[in-house]
């Protein structure tokens, strides 16, 4: 096969790979839109924290992980789960409280667990994901795996953050800490409650830290590949601060009154889906039609999922064992 054919093949593979990343992000976005509308319809209950706008982080990081790795997500975890390959129908059914949900309807939006798909859990307590991943890495270091913790900017002020990063560093554990800095903790700008630069905190412990554009999936993947590689190679914990922004309220009850004027609009210009589409039809030589096709397929997929989900049975109350 001629060199040019090879590069052509490589280009094709790269394009295909880029389209796959785009599809995953698009799936998350439409999933969240769907959850929001189902919430308004009274089919999703309690509260939800949507990942819309942050898709490139989880999709980029997950694309750098192997089968031996494990992930701890947060209450804002639909994207963390879908990026790992958790069955979208199972996740939707969980939100709908159905027996067919990935946790049988027991967990709901904030507490999803899917061990089969490397998701050790989503944690409703701020900092819980950090502890979970730190501990996981104690086990994974025996098998060459790396643990990943997602958490937000506001979580860096919690005791879990400090204790676990120090613990992981002194034990040189294979764990990657991914701070999704979306500028706010609930309604509070991160600078108002956070002393100094977030990335300086891991650096102080001697943990390598990078701050990256969290809305460009390729940038995220490259950073994650490097960090995961170093962790796997025995270089100890790694830290990524991904700068991003959530397009929706903190939770369903939040109108977002605190946003600075023009802020949301500016970030929409940097929508990770927009960024990816431009790269795809630009440098990666895909056609707009290829991307449109994905959009249509994902929309269809979600329509089918909603129908199936709303038709799925609710779990039957009944005695449940307290202990394993």
């Amino acid at each position, binding site marked *: 096969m001629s060199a040019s054919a090879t590069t052509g093949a490589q280009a094709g593979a790269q394009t295909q790979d880029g389209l796959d990343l785009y599809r995953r992000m698009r799936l998350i976005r439409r999933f969240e839109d769907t959850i929001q509308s189902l919430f308004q319809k009274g089919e999703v*209950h*309690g*509260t939800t924290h949507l990942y819309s706008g942050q898709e490139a982080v989880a999709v980029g990081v997950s694309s750098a992980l192997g089968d031996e790795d494990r992930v701890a997500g947060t209450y804002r975890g639909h994207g963390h789960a879908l990026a790992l390959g958790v069955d979208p129908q199972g996740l939707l059914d969980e939100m709908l*409280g*159905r027996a067919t*949900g990935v946790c*049988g*309807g*027991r*967990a*709901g*939006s*904030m*507490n999803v667990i899917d061990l089969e798909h490397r998701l050790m859990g989503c*944690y*409703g*307590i*701020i900092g819980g994901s950090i502890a979970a991943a730190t501990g996981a890495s104690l086990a994974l270091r025996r098998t060459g795996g790396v643990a990943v913790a997602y958490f937000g900017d*506001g*979580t860096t*002020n*919690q*005791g879990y953050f400090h204790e676990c990063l120090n613990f992981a560093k002194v034990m040189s554990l294979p764990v990657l800490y991914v701070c999704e800095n979306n500028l706010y*903790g*609930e*309604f*509070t700008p991160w600078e*108002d*409650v*956070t002393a100094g630069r977030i990335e300086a905190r891991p650096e102080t412990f001697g943990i390598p830290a990078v701050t990256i554009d969290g809305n460009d999936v390729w940038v995220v993947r490259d950073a994650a590949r490097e960090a995961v590689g170093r962790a796997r190679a025995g270089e100890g914990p790694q830290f990524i601060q991904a700068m991003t922004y959530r397009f929706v309220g903190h*939770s369903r*009850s*939040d*109108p977002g*009154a*605190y946003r600075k004027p023009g802020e949301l609009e500016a970030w929409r210009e940097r929508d990770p889906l927009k960024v990816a589409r431009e790269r795809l039809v630009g440098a990666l030589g895909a056609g707009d039609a290829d991307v449109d096709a994905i959009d249509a397929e994902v929309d269809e997929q979600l329509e089918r999922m909603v129908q199936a989900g709303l038709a799925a049975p*609710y*779990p*039957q*109350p009944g*005695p*449940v*064992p*307290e202990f394993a």
Partner: protein
Amino acid sequence: MPTLDFRTAIRDALDEELARDERVVLFGEDVASVQGGVFAATPGLQERHGSERVFDTPISELAITGAAYGAAVNGLRPVIEIMFGDFLFLAMDSLVNQSAKFFYLSGGRGSVPLVVRSAVGAGGRFGAIHSQSPIGWFHNVPGIKVAAPSSPSEAKALLKAAIRDDNPVLFLEHKRLYGVKEEVDGDVPDVPLGRARVAREGADVTLVSVMKGVGDCLQAAEALAADGISAEVLDLRTLRPMDTDAILASLAKTHRLAVVEEGPANGGWGGEVLAVAAEHGLHDVDDVWRLATPEHPIPYSPPLEDAFLPGVEAIVASVRSRLGAASH
């Protein structure tokens, strides 16, 4: 008659105490935000009382609670918000090992006038980590008071009493009550901590509960009245100290007592009520029992959560069967 809703009752109590006493301060996560916290219970308080006395904090439950303790020991009267009762574990060391110990260890020379507000309870589909009731975790801790109001007027009176109390008080706000409205004319009367309330007089059985459970018991009592069972409803209001006199008095009257507790029976506060009955009122007891939740975490799915909680129907059915049984 003018109505008072639970949220406004909380807000008004805070507003009035902040206005009355310079030493009162209020802080917590997002309490000073436009929304007035996640549960919209504190809007406008920073505007009215200034950012030195009402302010937001980092997401640092241990620092919030420890700081409140240190401030209370040095002359302030802090009210803090730990958003969900489920987060209290992260604050518990300071509450139990600092605030609850100080009065005794200081030889009675110092005290810790501190109020910890926290939203608790299930029924809102918030799942296993945002629906728990923390009473059991604090019930065995001397030096802490635990208040658990059942209505807007009770909430306003008890919160004011808690703020004026010189001891650390855990003040529990049941999420399902925030929307509740009540007709209130004029000011609500003062309520002392540690005193229970007979919410409904009855002769055949006593239903003991707190918070949302009191309303459920009142509805159940209504239904039971229809088939000639006269149920007394006792609102404990405060779990620690517990008004054992009120429990024993009602028991002496009805000889049958059921506790309605939103939480696992094993190790719950209802066990303490039954223990008090057995230890100090045995001769009055014909029957005592508990309605509580199953021994597993709180489920998210609506049918699971509904079946999990002891609701009005369950109370009615249980009383019917036990009284039937008891009359054999």
